[in-house]
């Protein structure tokens, strides 16, 4: 050190992390200060995929709608069922499932494609998977609108209990964010995770009560419920938005516990590994 030692306190001090995590309060503060980055980045991502244009929006809605049509055909032909509530359940659940799955697909590469920004700028890296989740939310919102058109045409019951759909969406968003954060970290270490993701999503789709209702499941398969956070979540979603009934309290609580659990584990893993990103991407 030379004689130039100054008396004023430093603006920033960088020291080794204690306990493997960055100082959380400071992290949160700098994350909050950069919230407009999240808004701007997700907006430009949406614009890049042309979701700001009419046809982009139409495609956003058309894609899951066609998909639900295909699955419905399958159920009608193979299963021999043809009731409209069944179609409502299928469509609503498919839309919610695609919210989670699209967020994961969008988020998996959020760190690895951040290249230059991660190499040359000091900022909370978690902003990148958060932006991916925001994009997921904006892609999900128009599908809710479409579902409301469908359920009006089909004359589904209407009631105050439908408002329970709001906390369900919030829980789903926490779950999707947790998964995006977790999977984006894993993808830094294993770059082929993003290639496995479509198979994983498809399997998850079939193992979730979307093409069937949970109550219709055989007894020996009921144990699946314990391992799939989407079971209680989709049950609550379907009851609220399709049947206009109050969801079961246990379903709500279990899905909230899942969502928070995955979010906390994902965030912990992310924060503990974050300093590695600049030397790994």
């Amino acid at each position, binding site marked *: *050190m*030379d004689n*130039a*030692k*100054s008396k*004023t306190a*430093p*603006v*920033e*001090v*960088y*020291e*080794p*992390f204690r306990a493997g995590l*960055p100082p959380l309060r400071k992290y949160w503060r*700098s994350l909050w*200060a*950069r919230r*407009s*980055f999240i808004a*701007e*980045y997700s907006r*430009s991502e949406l614009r*890049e995929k042309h979701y700001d244009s009419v046809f982009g929006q139409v495609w956003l809605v058309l894609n899951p709608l066609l998909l639900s049509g295909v699955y419905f055909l399958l159920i009608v032909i193979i299963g021999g069922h043809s009731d409209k509530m069944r179609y409502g359940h299928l469509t609503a659940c498919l839309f919610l499932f695609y919210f989670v799955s699209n967020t994961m697909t969008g988020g998996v590469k959020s760190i690895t494609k*951040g*290249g*230059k*920004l991660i*190499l*040359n*700028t*000091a*900022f909370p890296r978690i*902003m990148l998977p958060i932006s991916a989740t925001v994009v997921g939310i904006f892609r999900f919102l128009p599908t809710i609108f479409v579902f409301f058109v469908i359920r009006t045409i089909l004359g589904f019951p209407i009631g105050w209990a439908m408002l329970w759909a709001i906390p369900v969406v919030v829980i789903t968003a926490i779950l999707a964010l947790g998964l995006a954060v977790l999977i984006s970290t894993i993808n830094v*270490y*294993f*770059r*082929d*995770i993003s290639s*496995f993701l479509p198979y994983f999503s498809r399997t998850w789709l079939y193992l979730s009560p979307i093409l069937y209702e949970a109550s219709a499941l055989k007894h020996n398969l009921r144990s699946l419920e314990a391992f799939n956070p989407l079971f209680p979540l989709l049950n609550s979603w379907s009851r609220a938005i399709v049947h206009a009934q109050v969801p079961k309290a246990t379903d709500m609580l279990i899905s909230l516990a899942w969502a928070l659990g995955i979010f906390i584990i994902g965030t912990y893993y992310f924060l503990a590994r974050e*300093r*590695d990103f*600049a*030397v*790994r991407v």
Partner: protein
Amino acid sequence: MQSESNSTHIPGELAVSVQHLGLTYTTTIDRRPTLKARVRTLGRGTKHTRVVRALDDIMMDVPYGSVLGIVGANGAGKSTLMRVISGILPPSQGRVEVYGKVSTLLALGVGFSPTLSGRQNVELGGLAAGMTRKEIASHFEEIADFAELGDAIEAPMRTYSSGMFARLGFAVAVTVRPDILIVDEALSTGDAHFKEKSLNKIKELRSDARALILVSHGLGTIRDVCNEVAWLDKGKLIKRGEPNAVVDAYEKFLKVGKSAAIDEDI
């Protein structure tokens, strides 16, 4: 680093203090680490990562009103040191104190998204670095002017040449008026005209009582603008002091002597 500070600093006052800084990190050997490769080599004892000792017990102070030049061979740890000072990499040992707002060249992450336009990249990079929309908007004209990109500022950055990239990066770094400016081999890709312009800008900033850290292989520039030079090799600080003395020693080390090639190109 959050907001723009236009506070004037007294020359000689400490800007950056690096104390016993050490940095060790683990990185992959494979260019693209995959689960597949990991599974295939399971049980064979293949190593997938290596530990890099990038910086070792670095001590250095940078006062305001001075230009510190950093020289060293490729892989000496120059860029790593700059990343620690700008808070991108947390240190493994020691401590870094920064007494002002730091801006690295390309620190604004300019050009991270090739599909977005130059303007959007500047805006996003600025927001990521913690600037407000207002601050960015107030600097934008000046940045576009200095970079001399014309209409290309609205074109996707994948259409940019490397010179255009460098110009935009440099323009962003110098126009946001950081207290501490880090320039990392940035002048190398501009044309002669832009090189001179950026050199002048650096000299202007020096007289402005800011602190500058210049990482360059262009030893001519280093001799020309720096007050002090530090020579890094394999993560260690070899020599530090008066520019000509350090650069001479470094040149001797390189066994190339004073040749036109290293003197001319920045």
